[in-house]
């Protein structure tokens, strides 16, 4: 947990410096240009536009690392090139650079307040996000005894489901259930999770609606689930919460007991977070 916090804090610090660099470079280099001219060195004022160009590249980078992309911020380096590639005299160059610096500072504010935080995207591929880690830590004690082969099956079923390979996910879930001889306690819960995912996968694969009777977790298993099954508003809701819980359970078992599959699981983390938070 401390490692995640450190990574996120260091990412945030780096981004704060980059955000500060945008107005500093864009206004600062132009200001240096003005001072140089006031001292009598009449260097081509176009060269002092490089602060604006660098700031545009930083802004585009900050837009790139966000999960929600801002196409306007992403394209600012192209505009910087178009605006500053043509030689200009002192007054028009200064005006253009100041207007450009103001514009990209406003775009930075727009990016910050309308396109959210970037640290989730940076850390999603490296570490588990906090809410997911909390659930996995809660469930890991109960599923610590699951064999690596079963955990690998859980990983494969989860990843295939996330990729929309529903028929393959169902097939693998069936194979995983057949392999389980012990049908008591946590193993029974895991078997039920496989069965729920299998049932949903087959229904989605054939584009069928919810059946009248369907598999759900038992009340004694609710303690192992990520989302409270009791909050289900109606049959549809209960049916879909069971799937969310089954997928989250498979993810948790796979993460705890099959370290080799973690890179594949991390690649699906955005999907798991969606299941957990919805």
């Amino acid at each position, binding site marked *: 947990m401390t490692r995640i916090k450190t990574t996120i804090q260091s990412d945030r610090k780096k981004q704060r410096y980059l955000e500060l660099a945008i107005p500093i470079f864009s206004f600062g280099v132009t200001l240096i240009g003005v001072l140089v001219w006031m001292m009598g060195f009449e260097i081509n004022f176009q060269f002092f536009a490089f602060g604006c160009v660098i700031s545009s590249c930083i802004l585009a980078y900050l837009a790139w690392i966000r999960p*929600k992309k801002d196409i306007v911020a992403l394209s600012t380096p192209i505009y910087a090139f178009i605006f500053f590639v043509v030689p200009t005299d002192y007054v028009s160059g200064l005006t253009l650079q100041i207007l450009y610096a103001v514009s990209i500072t406003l775009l930075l504010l727009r990016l910050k307040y309308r396109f959210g935080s970037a640290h989730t995207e940076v850390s999603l591929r490296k570490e588990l996000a906090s809410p997911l880690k909390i659930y996995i830590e809660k469930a890991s004690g109960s599923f610590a005894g699951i064999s690596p082969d079963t955990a690998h099956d859980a990983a494969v079923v989860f990843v295939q489901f*996330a990729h*929309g390979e529903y028929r393959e996910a169902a097939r693998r879930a069936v194979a995983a259930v057949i392999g389980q001889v012990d049908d008591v306690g946590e193993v029974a819960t895991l078997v039920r999770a496989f069965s729920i995912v299998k049932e949903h996968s087959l229904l989605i694969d054939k*584009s069928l609606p919810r059946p009248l009777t369907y598999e759900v977790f038992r009340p004694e298993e609710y303690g192992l689930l990520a989302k409270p099954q009791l909050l289900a508003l109606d049959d*549809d809701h209960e049916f*879909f919460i069971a799937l969310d819980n089954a997928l989250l359970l498979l993810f948790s078992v796979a993460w705890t007991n099959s370290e080799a599959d973690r890179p594949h699981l991390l690649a699906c983390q*955005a*999907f798991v977070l969606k299941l957990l938070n919805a």
Partner: protein
Amino acid sequence: MKIGNVEVKVSILSIGVFVFFTFFLIVASVYSPDVRSNLIWMIPVLFMLLVIPVALNYMSRSQYAELEPEYERQAKTVRIKLINENMIGKIVRIEGVVERVHFQFLNRPQYSVADRSGAISVKMFTSPDENIKVNDLVVVLGQVIRRYIATGDPVVNCVSIRKKSADSTTDE
């Protein structure tokens, strides 16, 4: 306007451009003899401003019409929440309520469609068969793509968007 079996729709923007340049040409030809002498090629060019969008719309709509049966065959009906970045390229069918409609005037409508599990952007690169409005219950058929081709959140590249009739809703 119907060409063959394809209902062709011209965007308001194309009509606006045509009207603007027609007006511009009339005014210019009244005041300038040079313009009048060139009307023989200016008028056909003016009509091209309408003909080209019509032709493009016909081509895209006929292509989408050809794709629809294949998409219909391959599509899996999923809840919106299940659509994620790992499903890029998958063909899906979603059912939901239209929450927002943008860019209809460009014949490139973009919808925000929501079901009980979440909401997703649905982009269409041609005009739809039906006039889709906010609060319509629709069935969308399309492919999961990224918003900006190589990056961005998953959205649905729509091949068909149709209103779900009240009969089919009650049937279920």
